[in-house]
């Protein structure tokens, strides 16, 4: 790909990568940081990227960057008092209670499970397409999706029970 194509490529793919990172990381600030790192890393290697594989390459970068980010974040989370600033305000009314609970539940999923959910619901990929995208078997996709949905159901039910109390 040429450097001149970057702006258009960014415009075409920024939303999907942002959505993916929001699903993995669970908050806007982290997603904002990692989306910048992702696109800059892509730009650094743009000369070596083929147009046909550019999107999957971008996803791979986003995945790797978010893994590194989460590792570093987890290392400092327990020591960083700033992290308490991100606790949700329970007293404030929630404009979209269902979706915020879903968003929270999604962000608590392991990266692999969050990835298959993103690919199925955001990218609207079939099991076969997901298996090709991730390089895993159809059975593995099926199993990951079942596990992901089971965890989501559990978390959402727990949330509802918590709200009911």
């Amino acid at each position, binding site marked *: 790909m040429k450097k001149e194509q970057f702006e258009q490529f960014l*415009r075409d793919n920024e939303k999907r990568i942002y959505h993916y990172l929001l699903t993995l990381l669970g908050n806007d600030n982290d997603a904002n940081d990692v989306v910048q790192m992702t696109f800059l890393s892509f730009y650094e290697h743009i000369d070596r990227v083929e147009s046909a594989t550019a999107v999957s390459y971008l996803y791979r970068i986003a995945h790797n960057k978010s893994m590194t980010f989460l590792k570093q974040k987890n290392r400092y989370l327990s020591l960083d008092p700033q992290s308490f600033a991100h606790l949700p305000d329970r007293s404030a009314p929630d404009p979209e209670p269902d979706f915020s609970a879903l968003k929270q539940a999604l962000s608590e999923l392991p990266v692999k499970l969050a990835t298959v959910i993103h690919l199925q619901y955001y990218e609207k990929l079939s099991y076969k397409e997901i298996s090709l995208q991730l390089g895993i078997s159809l059975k593995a996709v099926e199993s990951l999706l079942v596990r992901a949905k089971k965890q989501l159901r559990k978390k959402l039910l727990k949330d509802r029970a918590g709200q009911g109390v």
Partner: protein
Amino acid sequence: MPANEETMNCSKARHYLDLMLDGELKEGLIPMAELHLKGCPSCRSYYDAGKTLNQMLGMAPEAAFPEWLHQRILHQASQHEPQRIGFARRWKLQTIPALLAVAVSLYVGALMGVKAYAANTQTYATEATQSTESYELASFGESLLMDLDSNNGGYNE
């Protein structure tokens, strides 16, 4: 088929229901799964919960990508550009001295080699001359000895 429907347990049925919810269940198996649903309230609630989750995931609002973030990425990319050129230039500058150093070392090495060869040849020539002289001396000695032998060592019989 009816035999299968009767023997299908809830675990297998839920596997089919998961696939059915995602539109991945083979058409031939859909009636079996539906029949199980009719007779199993537990699997019916499992299916309904799955359907609700599917709807929620499908309807979840897409987060808008902030425009400022788009601009910031472009700005950072443009800032990144001079670094790329600088790096390329630095690489080129490093290549030229490296090639020069290799050429100079080859030249100096060749010169030293030629000088050493010349010096060696000279030494060899000197040594060869010296060895001819000694050979001549030796042969002179030999002939003397031979003369002496033929003359019975110079002794009188």
